[in-house]
């Protein structure tokens, strides 16, 4: 294990300890009046940021490591959310507006019984399986067709964008029986505990953090195997990979399906914490947002997307409240600055500073290097 990778693991472990140990502890055991208290609100929004972090990794696995800019990740994210959402809708029971066993929107549409495809979702296990199964199936079928036809580059982006747009139009329709424009909301229980209570939200937050950590280490392992090498070779020169006797289709398909599954699990965790899912979450601009997080954080690294997702969303949360009229300008200028001056994203700041320092102060021996958190070097 190299010194750099050991350092990276140390940093990841420290951040994980703060986010998953210290923050929830300050929320649970410190009195509300204390300076160190972390509010339920903060825990809840951080849970959302971490779920976005999972989505960002899925984008980067495709874009940063395989060179496939997928604009359809919002679809897999939302489908994961919808699958868990179906279970949560059924768990509301008679506590809805209409005091009926059916979800409110079905009563409202005049239905008197539960449509057949809704019934298995009474089981959380079934819903959890579907969270993975549906997005993976769709990505496998779509990926197979796209990659076998050698669709790549901007055409792949356009097609994935069309896929998610088409799906959002379908979900907007009320006859889909998936809640139409309003989607699913007003969730009450999961595994018998009140989803809106501080304790449940804390557990969900910690769970999201653990999943994010797992996804991070999983992808870290994957990108360092021989598979990861081929993956990056495809990114850099697909033709050469083909001539070397590798079938790029299988590799790309595998990455596409895996990243759909990652996005989906992020979506499911997102919905449980945010408490709402509707078709506007699967429009192409949501996919683009995730691409922006990755670009801001640092494409082609695994820490970068997480940093980008958390940073951009935390900034958005803060700015929509503090400067509601100017926040778009603030965010826009951040993106410009990153694109113009930090093409490798926020996480390249230490190495950029170091380079600058080296070039300006021409000492024969550079000073002690500042710790670099990038994982791009292999």
């Amino acid at each position: 294990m190299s010194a750099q990778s050991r350092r990276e693991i140390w940093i990841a472990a420290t951040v994980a300890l703060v986010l998953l140990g210290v923050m929830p502890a300050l929320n649970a055991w410190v009195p509300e009046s204390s300076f160190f208290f972390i509010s339920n609100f903060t825990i809840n929004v951080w849970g959302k940021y971490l779920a976005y972090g999972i989505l960002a990794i899925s984008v980067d696995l495709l874009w940063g490591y395989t060179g496939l800019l997928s604009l359809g990740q919002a679809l897999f994210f939302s489908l994961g959310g919808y699958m868990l959402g179906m279970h949560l809708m059924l768990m509301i029971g008679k506590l809805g507006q209409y005091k009926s066993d059916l979800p409110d929107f079905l009563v409202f549409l005049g239905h008197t019984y539960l449509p057949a495809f809704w019934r298995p979702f009474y089981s959380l296990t079934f819903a959890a399986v579907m969270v993975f199964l549906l997005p993976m199936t769709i990505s496998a079928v779509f990926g197979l067709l796209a990659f076998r036809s050698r669709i790549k580059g901007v055409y792949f982006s356009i097609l994935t964008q069309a896929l998610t747009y088409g799906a959002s139009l379908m979900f907007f329709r009320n006859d889909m029986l998936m809640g139409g424009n309003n989607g699913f909301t007003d969730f009450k229980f999961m595994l018998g505990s009140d989803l809106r209570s501080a304790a449940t939200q804390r557990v969900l937050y910690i769970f999201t953090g653990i999943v994010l950590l797992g996804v991070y280490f999983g992808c870290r392992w994957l990108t360092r195997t021989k598979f990861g090498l081929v993956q990056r070779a495809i990114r850099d020169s697909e033709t050469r990979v083909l001539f070397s006797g590798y079938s790029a289709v299988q590799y790309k398909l595998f990455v596409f399906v895996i990243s759909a599954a990652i996005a989906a699990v992020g979506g499911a965790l997102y919905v449980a914490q945010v408490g709402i899912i509707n078709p506007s979450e699967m429009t192409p601009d949501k996919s683009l947002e995730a691409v922006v997080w990755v670009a801001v954080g640092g494409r082609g690294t695994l820490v970068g997307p997480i940093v980008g997702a958390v940073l951009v969303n935390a900034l958005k949360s803060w700015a929509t409240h503090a400067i509601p009229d100017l926040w778009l300008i603030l965010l826009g200028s951040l993106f410009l600055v990153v694109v113009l001056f930090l093409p490798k994203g926020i996480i390249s700041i230490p190495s950029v500073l170091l380079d600058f320092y080296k070039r300006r102060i021409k000492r024969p021996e550079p000073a002690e290097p500042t710790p670099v958190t990038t994982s791009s070097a292999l």
Partner: protein
Amino acid sequence: MKMVNQSAKALLALTGMVFTHTAIAADTVKVGVLHSLSGTMAISETSLRDVLLYTFDEINAKGGVMGKKIEPVVVDGASNWPLFAEKAKELLEKDKCSVVFGCWTSVSRKSVLPVFEKNNGLLFYPVQYEGEEESKNVFYTAEAVNQQATPAVDYMLDKKKEKFYLIGSDYVYPQTTNLVLLEYLLSKGVPLENIGGGFKKDGSGKIISAGKYTPFGHTDYQQIVAEIKQFTAGGKACVINTLNGDTNVPFFKEYAAAGLTAETCPVVSFSISEDEFRALPAKQLVGQLGCWTYFQTVKSDANKAFISGFQKWLKDTKVDGVKKEGRVTCSPMVLSYDGVYLWKQAVEKAGSFDVDKVRTALQSGLSFDGPGGKVTTQKNMHLTKNVFIGETKADGQFKILKEYKDVFGEPWLKGTFKAK
């Protein structure tokens, strides 16, 4: 240059927020404003933010609420429904706002509702909606279906119309409104074959959807208008329109192109108010009807004072992002304005900002003489108000044709009208 200026301001605000946060006077009451200031809904919702800020200034100038100045906390929901939920949570849990004025779309209201119920907050909701909801944490100053759609149908029946074509965008509000209208029309003796747009039935033959629906952003209305033209062939027909936003433009263009006019077959719309005409061309809609609980052309002293006060405020205000030219007033704006005054009255009656006490006061039947006439709060958290039918003029204003006095707001209408 403006960009630079604004970014500089953003930076200033950034640093300013850090330092001034502690310097807030204690004799204020925090009031949340939760509307979309960016994204697709911004065009409608920023007007409500503006009118709310105006109302707060007006109240503060007269001494505030129970001696406390209103301190608005404006946030941007950005037409993003999960963000609405997050912002609602922030307003209630972090800022501890006594009341929140906000939301436009039904989906934004549905997404913040669990937050308000969990924190026992109070939301004032000002935009026409489908009903089928009655939360103790929401006060609906909005028009219920029987304060817009059924009076419009009454008017059409008065005008000896016999055939009704229903068209709308495919979401909750049009779907519910049309189901209610179907029952209402049948109860008035209109036969089923005189109701156009098509029906969808479930397995048992019960109608679960009435009318023609198009998705958001739909642009091709040729076929539908041809169908309407066929439907109107015998005369005495009208169209009930619940299309949303900019889809109205291609619809009315096609409608005029097909030779249909307000004389042969009038269209009555529920989603186009004066404010929408800032973005829609009024030309194709001249003579068509609208139905709201307020029009800018209402003749009353309260309305005159409201319009001139608002215009003066627009001229003087230093709030960022307020558009100053070509501004009009419309029903959602007036219902926001009424809401603030009703809340003030309720607080003063309760002698407290506590939500439970304010709610009890609100449910006790408070009255306020607003720009659209007298409004009275009801036990079911809705509002009794006057309903107006207006005819569109070329300048985007409405000529008032008919007024229904003191209509009770009823959210639960489905199944209440029995066929003859």
